[in-house]
């Protein structure tokens, strides 16, 4: 039950979508781009947001495309289940298939998970490790920028800009990865820790969410991770100490527990990846 009205439009091209956003904005309609809508509908019901123009991007070809031949590309309006069914990247699939629940994953999209208000944005974790680019459309056209530049706690979009998809150079499935997810109690919940590791060219990379207020990949932490003179436990202790100020405390868990879980996850991942 959404207690107010909005206009719902279905652009069929990027240009239509963006110009529709700006003309709605000019009319003071507080427009939103809409793909899965699971979060927007909920926020509207609770009247935490009140858009009067909803622009559905699910009919824009660039938002629905999936390509795993040359440059990999995943449209922002693909549902998580569509990607898990089609992708050859087992880490990507493993992470996406733990977000929300199976029924919701038939509606929740990649773009929605990345662009939503919820801080976890777990879909970003493997993408940060794949050195992916965000393909962003705006008034000035389409740009593709690395997440390392354009993702800082959240995707930094300009006014009226729209995430079309995610791309990265062709990739064979990295067999060497570890994904650990912990919840307060019960699988169907937000994570108190969600962490991905991959090993590429003898180097281990890590991206973390849940434990912190936002998803993070940190070069300094990765440097420590790869100091092979130290034991996995020593490295885990150093990395988790390095993040001392990052851990979140909320009703789901304390910072101390989150830190403990991360330490355990790092130790196990290093042992497994260096085995």
């Amino acid at each position, binding site marked *: *039950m*959404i*207690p*107010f009205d909005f206009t719902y439009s279905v652009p069929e091209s990027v240009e239509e979508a963006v110009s529709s956003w700006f003309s709605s904005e000019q009319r003071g309609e507080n427009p939103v781009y809409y793909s899965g809508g699971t979060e927007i509908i909920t926020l509207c019901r609770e*009247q935490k947001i009140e858009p009067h123009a909803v622009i559905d991007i699910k009919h824009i070809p660039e938002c629905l495309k999936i390509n795993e031949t040359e440059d990999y590309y995943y449209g922002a309006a693909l549902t998580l289940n569509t990607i898990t069914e089609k992708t050859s990247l087992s880490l990507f699939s493993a992470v996406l298939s733990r977000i929300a629940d199976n029924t919701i994953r038939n509606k929740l999209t990649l773009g929605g998970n990345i662009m939503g208000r919820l801080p976890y944005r777990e879909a970003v974790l493997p993408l940060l490790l794949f050195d992916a680019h965000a393909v962003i459309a705006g008034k000035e056209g389409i740009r593709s920028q690395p997440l390392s530049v354009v993702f800082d706690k959240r995707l930094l979009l300009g006014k009226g800009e729209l995430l079309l998809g995610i791309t990265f150079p062709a990739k064979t499935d990295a067999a060497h990865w570890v994904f650990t997810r*912990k919840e*307060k*109690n*019960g*699988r*169907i*919940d937000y994570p108190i820790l969600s962490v991905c590791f991959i090993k590429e060219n003898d180097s281990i990379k890590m991206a973390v969410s849940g434990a912190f207020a936002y998803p993070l990949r940190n070069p300094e932490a990765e440097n420590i991770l790869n100091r092979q003179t130290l034991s996995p436990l020593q490295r885990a202790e150093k990395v988790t100490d390095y993040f001392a100020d990052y851990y979140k405390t*909320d*009703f789901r*868990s*304390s910072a101390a*527990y989150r830190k*403990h*879980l991360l330490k*355990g996850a790092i130790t196990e991942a290093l042992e497994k990846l260096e085995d």
Partner: protein
Amino acid sequence: MDEYKAVGKNTERVEGQDKVNGKIRYTDDLPLPGMLYTAFVRSSHAHAKILSIDHREAEKIEGVTGVFTGEDFPYLIGLYLGDKPPLAREKVRYFGEPVAVVVAHTEAAARYAAKLINVTYEPLKVLASPEEALKPDAPLIHENLSAYNHIDAILPEPGTNIGNRTRIRKGDIQAGFKAADVIIEESFSFPPGDHVFMEDRIAIAEILSDGQVVIRSSTQSPFGVQNLMSSFFQIPQRKITVITPPVGGGFGGKAGIQLEPLAFLLSREMGGRPVRIALTREEDLVSAPGAAGLHARVKLGAKKTGEFTAAEILFLFDSGGYADYAVNVSRAAAFASSGPYKLDNLQTDSLSVYTNHPFATAYRGFGHIELSFAVERAVDILSEKLGIDPVTIRLKNSIQAGETTPTQNVLDNSTGNLKECIHTVAQRLNWNNGSLRKISSTVVRAKGIACFWKAPAIPTNTQAGAIITFNNDGSVNLATGAVEIGQGILTGLAQIAAESFGMDPEMVHVVRDVITDRSPNDWTTAASRTLFMAGRAVLNAAEDAIQQIKSIASAVLACPPEDLEVADGKVFLRDEKDTMLPLSSMVNGYTYPNGTAIGGPIIGRGKYIARHLTHVDPLTGKGRPALEWTLGAEGVEVEVDLKDGSFKVLQASCAMDVGNVINPDLARGQVVGAMAMGIGYSTTEAFEFDTSQKVLNGTLRDFKILRYGEHPVYTVDFIRTPQKDGPYNARGLGEQGIIGMPGALASAFSRAVGKQLTKMPFTPEYLWKQGAAV
């Protein structure tokens, strides 16, 4: 079970086909023409003075027909203790309390307008626990407690935050502790929670032109609503009709009176038009009443050999901002406070204490799940100190026929066999193979056991009725006042009726909706007493109908009525079965071949009222409040990874002495469902508060109940010591399966982490912390 035709059989649920086809109609599935919708403004503070409510902007919204605040409805209502205004007046007493309501032509307009209402508050000191509320300098949550109306059995203490105090004084505890070789004393606690039935609460009220108040409500207490509405608003009883279709889960949370008074008041303001109050899930969780929290202290003494000598118990129930059922929950907990153990020297004080938490009402187990956690923990701690196995110490102290309850009643020879229940559960758990096992360097498997008992906490004059009529084919219509809340009561009663008439349950049509102006009176569908009492009423109604059948048949067949029997749709001579009449020929009048008719519609009238219950003495608790006790034992096996406290409940076992089983599948379903609820209750279902006592997890996303895949393997065993006054020797079993779960899980988790745990919920983080501290 071959002696029975219908009882003891797994008859298909009578409303089952409609439930799997989406055709069953709950209250919200039947909107009324011209119905108005509502939306609430809820308090953003846990304890605050209301300074102003500005609703001018809300009134301007198209479709809004009225905005109301507490000042519009100067009533104080309450089930036992009249402490609650329909909307908060002058101050709010918990986070989420309804402060204002918008009525509108559409739900959208009502919700949109409600958001525009601006309330200003002056925060007051919040009371975050019963202990805080009992401090001498604690502010009073109800300043006018002395002026409130209440029933005699409830004893509020004006000038304090105590809504009720129940005392048990049995034997001599000084002497008992003196005789003890070992004494333990420990505190236990857990925060409030919620029922989380799938159907949110809803009531629709309208007032017809002749003043008839018609209320459609998802309630366990249609007759209770009728009675209370009549006394709150001085409406003549005959002018109130409550209609209750099947209910989408109750668990105690829909007993008593809830949304109905406000729905009525709003309909009256709207000239009698139907007004619907349907809670959102968030409102149902936080604004509407839930399960009480508990802070308890138990001192327990025993001989070296394990026999208990005395107990001193303090229960502080966290009733939240209002009393509702909590004042009686705390009372019931006192009456059963020893747990199912022989305790000749017992002193209990059980208090219902106001705090600034969401208020509490009846919750499956009604005080017994709470008390059981505290008592079973104490028993385990004592058993550890004595070095006696937890199973052995329970067997040693099991209560039996001839011994006395906390209220000093002697248990009669219908009393269940607790020892057999304990043995059965221990066997199901393979207890003798050890209760703690290492699986890997960090993973352990641990077992735990607990006992439980429960009697219905009911008024001394609790009653039930049944009416049986017949269709021309000889089939039966059965109407009672029992509400189908998922427990399968309609099916159970159909089986009892069918058994009485010696017919197939398919030949019994059970009326589904309870409508107070045509259904026979029934106290309330709660306390696990419905099968017992409504079942007895059905037996009584069938007997009444059978007498009438025999009386007519004796004229037609020219024989004494006592030579006749009724079965298989016929009335026949016992020793000459071919001399008979089909019921179809005579249940609505018998017509002789020459056209002359006798009889007329047969109407079976049945009734039952609780037997030999008495009030209790306010100083000692002496009296008889309990109709029949259901006893049992439960056990679990858990697997815990000590490195982070994560766990899985592998097995949950229950053995319960139920007297007899009317429908084994439905009975098992009740017990299994209750065990699952008990797992959630103990591990996830607790409100989390910030320092100002705002609820942090007030959505179903954050307030977790058990999901598919988190459930264990269940075993259920029924022991059958006949309940001699029960219908076909059966006794109540709907709630009992939840009661032992907190104790059993606490026992297992304590064993796993190597430390006696005293607080719930058992989250992985809590287990990790406790385990790491060892």
